[in-house]
């Protein structure tokens, strides 16, 4: 398109400069704090100190656990939903897909506060439990890992469904009937046909959901409070309560590494021949 390469580069230069100045440089400066000691020399002591504290270790493991659980559950529910959506008539497919996308247009704060109404002591779930006589008193649902898990799953499930629908739309229409005709049961159809052909969608959806769950702040803060700390809420505390930028920088670096690692692991899984 361009007569020479420099013309193309010149067009990209403003965007590259802007991104470098307002994103890459500040992030690099912030993250560099995590690799310095008090005198400014290179040091990994910040990481040693961080993982030396039992609270930090348990928060790290909880974040990892919830991230995997949310991504895994979203994949299971997402495959079922996506399979259903791609097999609908075109008109219905558009409507249902619109419903899947709809929550993404609503603020995460509003969506998360809705869960307080549902999971609270006077919420719909507890009213039902007490009404059915399953418990004499409302049970504690808010400020638990379960509440955070539900909130995160609801928040990020649409991203998994969208990714899987896109992937499934590219599966040739006749391969599943062919597999069935050749005697494969639905379990075999999924693992031998659908999964290999939708790996890319799973990688994209899995990465989006996992990183989203890891880096979400509002949902763990509202539904988990200070008793169910995750790395993101701990990071906020380090900055706004303790003024401890070293620990905050360490947490930010850990989150970045976790997100990139998740993408690499998912790609690795996707590249394994079935």
């Amino acid at each position, binding site marked *: 398109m361009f007569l020479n390469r420099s013309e193309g580069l010149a067009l990209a230069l403003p965007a590259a400069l802007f991104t470098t100045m307002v994103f890459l440089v500040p992030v690099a400066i912030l993250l560099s704090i995590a690799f310095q000691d008090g005198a400014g020399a290179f040091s990994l002591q910040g990481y040693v100190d961080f993982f030396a*504290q*039992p*609270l930090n270790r*348990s928060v790290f493991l909880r974040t990892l656990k919830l991230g995997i659980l949310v991504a895994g559950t979203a994949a299971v529910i997402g495959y079922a939903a996506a399979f259903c959506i791609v097999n609908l008539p075109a008109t219905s497919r558009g409507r249902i897909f619109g419903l899947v996308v709809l929550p993404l247009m609503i603020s995460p704060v509003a969506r998360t506060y809705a869960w*307080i109404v549902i999971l*609270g*002591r*006077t919420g719909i779930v507890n009213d039902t439990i007490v009404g059915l006589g399953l418990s004499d008193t409302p049970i*504690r649902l*808010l*400020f638990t890992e379960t509440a955070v898990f539900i909130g995160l799953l609801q928040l990020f499930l649409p991203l998994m469904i969208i990714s899987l629908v896109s992937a499934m739309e590219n599966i040739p229409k006749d391969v599943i009937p062919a597999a069935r005709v050749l005697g494969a049961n639905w379990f075999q159809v999924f693992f031998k046909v659908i999964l290999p052909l939708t790996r890319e969608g799973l990688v994209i959806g899995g990465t989006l959901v996992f990183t989203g769950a890891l880096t979400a702040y509002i949902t763990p803060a509202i539904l988990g*409070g*200070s*008793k169910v*700390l995750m790395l993101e809420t701990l990071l906020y*505390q380090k900055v*706004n*309560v*303790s*003024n401890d930028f070293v620990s905050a920088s360490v947490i930010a670096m850990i989150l970045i590494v976790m997100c990139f690692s998740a993408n690499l692991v998912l790609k690795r899984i996707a590249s394994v021949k079935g």
Partner: protein
Amino acid sequence: MTRHLSVIALAAALGATSAAAQDTLTISVYSFAQDAYKEALYDPFEEICNCELVIETGNSVERMAKIEANAADPVIDMAVISSHDALSLAQKGLLQPIDTSRISSFDRLYPAAQDPIGDNMAVGYTFYASSIVYREDLVSIESWSDLLGDDLAGNVSLPNITGTQGPLTLMMLDKAAGGDASDFTGTISAIGESADDIVTFYSRSSELAQLMNQEEVIAAPVGRFAWSRFKSSPLPFAWADPVEGQAGGMNVMLMTKENGNEDLAYMLMDYWLSAEVQTRIAEALIDSPANMDVVVSDEVAENLTYGAELINSLNILDPAEIIANRDGWVEQWNTEVIQ
């Protein structure tokens, strides 16, 4: 002609900038009730001083970090903050002693407010009591120890250790257990043993008000400054009068070191601490007065930490005690309570 106009405009702009630089006072305050402060304090003061007030808000940590980061060339001239945070700034050499002769109502302040952190590094402008707000239709509160009792298990919230109310709650729980407020180790362990019965550890009074109005929590310690949030609720909230008494704290004014704007800062301090302004702020239910000459109606007083008898009865935790032990408390809290 155009050139002349440009020169005039430039000169006017420079003049305006110069005037603004001379007559600007930058203060750092808590972010709550800023509209009410504007009406009761900022706007009237700007009319008197013929200057511009620049208001910086945020939580204590953010504001202290800003003062510390700009120590060489202060951007904040005067700040209001908790007494222990003020002591922390003073210990870092970031404050200058206050010349109390420049505060006309200084002698009319409650004695506890006149030199709360020593060396005249701060002067108190408001007191607050802390007690337990509770649902009187569901439970009765006689003692601070009720917070960890069976009746409130699963229905109580405590303030986080990192906030202002956290150490005060530790002090009163320690007192209820027969302690002398010298060592909170046992109290933190006791909270840790009851952690499953505590709904959550709140950070802001607005967060607690929301929890209690949603009936997630039926009792919790909180500062009296937040009482209006509960009083206006349709739910029957009450303010406890425990046998151990109420805890208390004080917020103070301070002056950053070598800020170069001392005259205006003293003018604001003098105005803020005057009986006239303290009364106006009290009647707006913003802050309880530190000036003994303030007289308010019983209805207003009911919402405040008001009067010598109440103020002298408060259990106040020594700011130096908080500074010296806070890191240890937080570490034990993170290990035994949060985890």
